[in-house]
């Protein structure tokens, strides 16, 4: 089961894409994230693991300021994207989210055609000057989302009519259509069957060539399979952060060991 662990993984040292320092998140009175420091590398898949309610999704949503939509949520500390603080007053969260795309737990295609689902982002960002360019962007995104072959004949069919796995790949394609630099994935496979999960995981591995990918997952096997770096969260603390192979084979912290061996979680 842990085959991937034993596979020799080349862990290149890439430049740091996102640097989080001293991040604290409060939900009203609830202290959800306690003083977290994390470096997210470019062209790397970083996995956040941990038991339910440990704050991994909350932290992920800090990285593109999706938490801004929750009025009671307060974020402190600094998160630097390419050296710029994304919580700076001058930063427009909308511009940030075009650079840091997001894929959600539940596939959430727009109730529009497959084409319009992909074309929506490029359209509002003015990425295409004409229909031909837009067509090209849509095709490229669907190809990179590994779903082009399945939907190329029915681009005008509703996106919500696809199967769960196809919908999620459509959402990934939609997220990469706007050419983000970082892709955040919040448990992207939790609603999918094993075959669809395998397809999405394969896709994540390919995306690593161009993007920095951060994935939150409940499944330790998945973290082991797709990521190069893993962060283990527990009760709002970042317990351990390091190379995936190290975390799974030789964890430093006893809590990490308990979790990956199934004693807590």
């Amino acid at each position: 089961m842990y085959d991937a662990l034993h596979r020799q993984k080349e862990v290149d040292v890439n430049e740091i894409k996102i640097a989080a320092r001293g991040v604290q998140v409060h939900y009203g009175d609830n202290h959800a994230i306690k003083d977290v420091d994390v470096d997210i590398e470019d062209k790397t898949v970083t996995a956040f693991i941990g038991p339910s309610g440990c704050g991994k999704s909350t932290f992920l949503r800090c990285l593109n300021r999706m938490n801004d939509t929750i009025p009671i949520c307060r974020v402190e500390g600094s998160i630097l994207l390419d050296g710029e603080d994304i919580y700076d007053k001058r930063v427009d969260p909308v511009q940030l989210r075009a650079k840091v795309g997001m894929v959600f737990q539940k596939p959430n295609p727009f109730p529009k055609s497959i084409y319009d689902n992909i074309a929506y982002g490029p359209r509002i960002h003015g990425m295409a000057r004409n229909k031909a360019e837009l067509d090209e962007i849509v095709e490229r995104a669907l190809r990179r989302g590994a779903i082009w072959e399945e939907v190329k004949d029915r681009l005008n069919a509703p996106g919500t009519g696809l199967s769960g796995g196809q919908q999620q790949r459509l959402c990934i394609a939609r997220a990469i259509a706007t050419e983000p630099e970082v892709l955040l994935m919040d448990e992207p496979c939790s609603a999918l069957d094993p075959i669809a999960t395998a397809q999405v995981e394969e896709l994540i591995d390919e995306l690593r060539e161009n993007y920095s990918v951060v994935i939150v997952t409940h499944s330790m096997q998945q973290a082991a399979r797709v990521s190069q770096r893993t962060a283990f969260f527990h009760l709002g603390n970042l317990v351990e952060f390091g190379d995936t192979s190290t975390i799974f084979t030789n964890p430093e912290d006893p809590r990490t060991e308990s979790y990956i061996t199934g004693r807590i979680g």
Partner: protein
Amino acid sequence: MTDATLHDGQPAPRKSSLHQLDALTKKRNAAESRFKAYGIVAILIGLFFLVVLTVTIVRSGIPAFTQTVVAVEFTLTQEQFDDAESKLMKTGAYQDYFIAAMEGKLAERGIEMDFDPAAIERLLGKIGSNLREHYRANPGDLGRPVSFELSASSRVDGYFNGRVTRDTLVESRFLMLSDLDLVDALSDAGLLKQAFNWNFITGADSGVDNPGGAGIGASVVGSFFMMLVVLVLSLPIGVAASIYLEEFAPKNRFTDLIEVNISNLAAVPSIVFGILGLAVFIQFMHLPQSAPLVGGLVLTLMTLPTIIISTRASLKAVPPSIRDAALGVGASKMQAVFHHVLPLAMPGILTGTIIGLAQALGETAPLLLIGMVGFVARGYPDGFLDGFVEPNSAMPAQIYTWAARSDVAFYDKAWGGIIVLLVFLLAMNFVAIVLRRRFERRW
């Protein structure tokens, strides 16, 4: 079940059989059947009242749409025309010719009747002037037979549909017992017939002693202009307010207060809005009295809470994942709302709007306070813009005015007015359903 029991070759003792319902299941099933029966009974009661209502309205309202007319073929020669025009009492002369012609028709069919010119006037109104107008306008018709359809008074209508009988008739300057003999004679001679009363649909309100001439057309136009004002004001204001409150406004004490007050406004009796309209729009702002514009403003105040509440409910019903998805690809909050949330909420918004408009359409009390009473609707507005400011009435106020008049013949008109009001409402609903179908492409 253990291995031991299997080896004994005896079946394990079964606690219960699936083929026998236990007491609890029976009770549960009975409760379910009872509930279904209650539901069906409730629906049947509702349907029963609906049928009773519809039948009553249609049966009482239909007489307003028909009218008894006297159809006579009449020839006026050039000499008779010149003769009549030379007389002092010109219309009286025309009337004499007409009576002579009618007597001839009756005699042809073997009916002898003595004609009292006053009786003819009571039954058919001032026919002399009608005839004169016709021939002065169409001199070419002189000397050849022209068939006239002269509408009989509403008392004659009442006599035919059973509202007026010989036993209950109170002799008055409107109708004498002897006139009914004439009516019967005309009827026997086949000169009377029932015709569709176009005047009821296209006409304006008439005087209190002329129920036959009353029409609802002017009030329909008044209601139309009012609804236009309500729609144009309350839909954009209501939707904008709801979107702001639901999607953008910070959640604090102040917005909570606004929210509570909007809900309270929806429950304010309509007459309060009428007084408010009178005080603010007419007395303070000096807008014209009895104008559909003012009526529309008052009804907008009444409709806004309904639209805001239903719009907020339908915005809330759009799954948050759609907002996340839009924000996730870098849409701004406003883009997320206008590109994705609002189209999905549109069917609900339309439903709320049509409910609000239907309420406003049927509202009477506030209109009476701002002077849009029925008798104001004496004519059509001169132009489109005049339609907003010229004194007019609205359908419910017109119906109320008719129902309050002492002449029972107006009672039919009130029922007929209700039918027209309901047809107007159905037309509005139809438009809303068509629009909703277009938006309802929810996959």
